[in-house]
């Protein structure tokens, strides 16, 4: 007679734990090995740039892992860098208007212009974007951009009304006009509404600045709130706000895809361009792979990803990128005007002189503008 095996509860638990551990060990070892071997790249960027839809393919192909630190606003970015030891960030996605300050503070490395497809850029002005070059040396390259203007709910504002910033004062919109809570875009728009389009809505004298403040204060009774990224999305989506000052398709584009009756247009007074550029952090030990990533983002594949970034879309800066977008998603290319001959073609708008690069105030201090913004919010 065969004796039954002595399998007490304690023995069973002990044996099964050892067996499970032994079986799982190769998997654990493999995963750890893979993680240990992946080169970690510290990224400083606006939200979304280090998310899987943007970096997953590059990570897999190059055995790297992006570790993003997100900011909101160029001065926030500068502060994060200023408070970190040199070499903390390998790659920096900067608002283009802040690149010159990054360079002046010696936070970024020089780039080799031959590494990037400047000859394929959709607009020659992008090749020599203000502040990206210094003494004939390149320090940053533009990778995407977008336009800011009037963002509105189609059920409350007609396309014709939205063709001017004046629509923000529409009586029916009292309490329904929102602000993206950053002073530069909103005050830039008010400056454009006042006719300050030459040389720039951000390069204005004392009288013009006083007038901008007056105009902005006149808008205050219409304002229903000041919102961050999430709040802007929610308030437009649930209809709490019917028009929004300080944003553009980077917000409404995402909502439109979700079926919300919203849109953004560049009004007749002109729009403001946000521009995002990549730089390599000073002292980075991973400059080579980071440079490869920047090249990837400027490749047609990278440009298509950027144009359809889940967090917020942006325009392609290369013709190759635009062509690839048309092939990949013609609907999105048409919606954003990224096809030849479209009336809202972003490059056409720039060439028509209707677009002004977002900038820091040239004749006042950033503090003056910020102080006024606080006063405005409190009014």
């Amino acid at each position, binding site marked *: 007679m065969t004796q039954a095996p002595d399998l007490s509860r304690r023995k069973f638990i002990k044996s099964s734990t050892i067996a499970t551990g032994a079986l799982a060990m190769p998997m654990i070892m493999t995963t750890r090995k893979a993680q240990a071997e992946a080169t970690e790249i510290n990224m400083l960027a606006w939200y979304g740039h280090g998310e899987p839809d943007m970096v997953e393919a590059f990570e897999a192909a190059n055995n790297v892992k992006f570790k993003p630190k997100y900011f*909101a*606003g160029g*001065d*926030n970015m*500068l*502060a994060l860098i*200023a*408070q970190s030891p040199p070499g903390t960030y390998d790659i920096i996605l900067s608002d283009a208007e802040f690149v010159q*300050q990054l360079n002046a*503070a010696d936070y970024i490395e020089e780039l080799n212009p031959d590494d990037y497809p400047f000859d394929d850029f959709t607009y020659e002005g992008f090749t020599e974007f203000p502040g990206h070059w210094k003494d004939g040396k390149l320090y940053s390259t533009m990778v995407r951009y977008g336009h800011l203007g009037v963002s509105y709910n189609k059920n409350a504002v007609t396309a014709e009304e939205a063709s001017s910033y004046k629509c923000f004062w529409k009586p029916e919109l009292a*309490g329904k006009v*929102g602000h993206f*809570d*950053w*002073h530069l875009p909103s005050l830039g728009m008010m400056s454009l509404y006042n006719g300050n389009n030459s040389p720039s809505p951000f390069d204005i004298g004392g009288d013009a600045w006083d007038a901008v403040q007056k105009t902005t204060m006149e808008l205050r009774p219409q*304002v*229903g*709130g*000041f*919102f*961050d990224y999430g*709040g802007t999305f*929610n*308030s437009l989506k*649930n*209809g*709490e706000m019917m028009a929004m000052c300080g944003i553009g398709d980077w917000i409404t584009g995402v909502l439109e895809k979700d079926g919300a009756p919203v849109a953004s247009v560049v009004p007749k007074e002109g729009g403001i361009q946000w521009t995002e550029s990549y730089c390599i952090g000073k002292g980075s030990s991973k400059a080579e792979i980071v440079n490869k990533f920047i090249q990837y983002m400027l490749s047609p594949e990278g440009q298509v990803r950027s144009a359809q970034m889940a967090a917020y879309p942006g325009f392609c800066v290369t013709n190759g990128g635009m062509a690839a977008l048309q092939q990949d998603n013609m609907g999105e290319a048409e919606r954003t005007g990224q096809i030849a001959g479209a009336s809202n073609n972003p490059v056409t708008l720039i060439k028509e002189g209707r677009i002004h690069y977002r900038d820091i105030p040239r004749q006042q201090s*950033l*503090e003056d503008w*910020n*102080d006024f*913004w*606080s*006063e405005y*919010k*409190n*009014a």
Partner: protein
Amino acid sequence: MPSSDKKRLDYYALTWRLPVIVWQVLFFVGPLVFMIAMSFFLVKNYRMTEAFEMKNWVKMFGKDYFWDSYFLTLLLASMSTIVATCLAFPAAYGLAFKVSGNVRRWIVFLLIIPFFTSYLVRTFSWYVILAESGVVNNILGVIGLGPYTMLNTRFGTLVGYMTLTLPLVVILQTFSLANVDKNLIEAAQNLGASRVKVILQVIIPSAKVGLIIGAVFCFILSFGDFVAPYYLGGSKPPTLPILIIDTTKSGQQWPRAAVVAVMMMVTLMIVAFTAIKLAYSRKAYR
């Protein structure tokens, strides 16, 4: 008692007090001192530099928007305290005197459950309820009322404050009321006091300490809350916590934000000390 024994006893007491002292020094006194020092620093090229200048204090105290935010925050936190205390009292009274101990334990447990989830998530859920196309306005619409604007208003901010503070105030009041000597209540009733008189002249004075501590907690939490006024009040106008964020976000003026923070600390300390003094005033023991 010999002096050596007394010394040993002090060391023994100190051993037990030491963790609390170390904790307070590390996580309260140290950061507070640093924050006060930071309010005298300067910002140059987005980088904080050590200095001892009054510029930040002069700048902030000279700005109307600082004082507007200050008095608004005081007003909203006071309103929140009054509303939470008034709303919580009937519930706490019921829990303390009208239900069995078992039911009370269950309800207190249910009141604790909201703290298991993120306050931010709970705040965002109000969007669905308070939006113009939200649950409340849809229900009101059925009876021909509304829609009413509730988000991005002071009402919205107060709803957020209640989300944060009301469960805590109910719990604190309940524990306080449950500890009131029932003999005192019975004695008052036997002497012919009406129910209102019993509440006003026996229960509330007896539970005064707990009721005031509940109110103080509500005030402190509301005064320092960023989420409700930003997401439900639309930052319109901004409260002091929002002003701190604004100040640091643009221009990286951490020293000026420290001025705001120090003013908040001073205010909260004055309120807390006054309230505690009131709570433990001699009258409370009668």
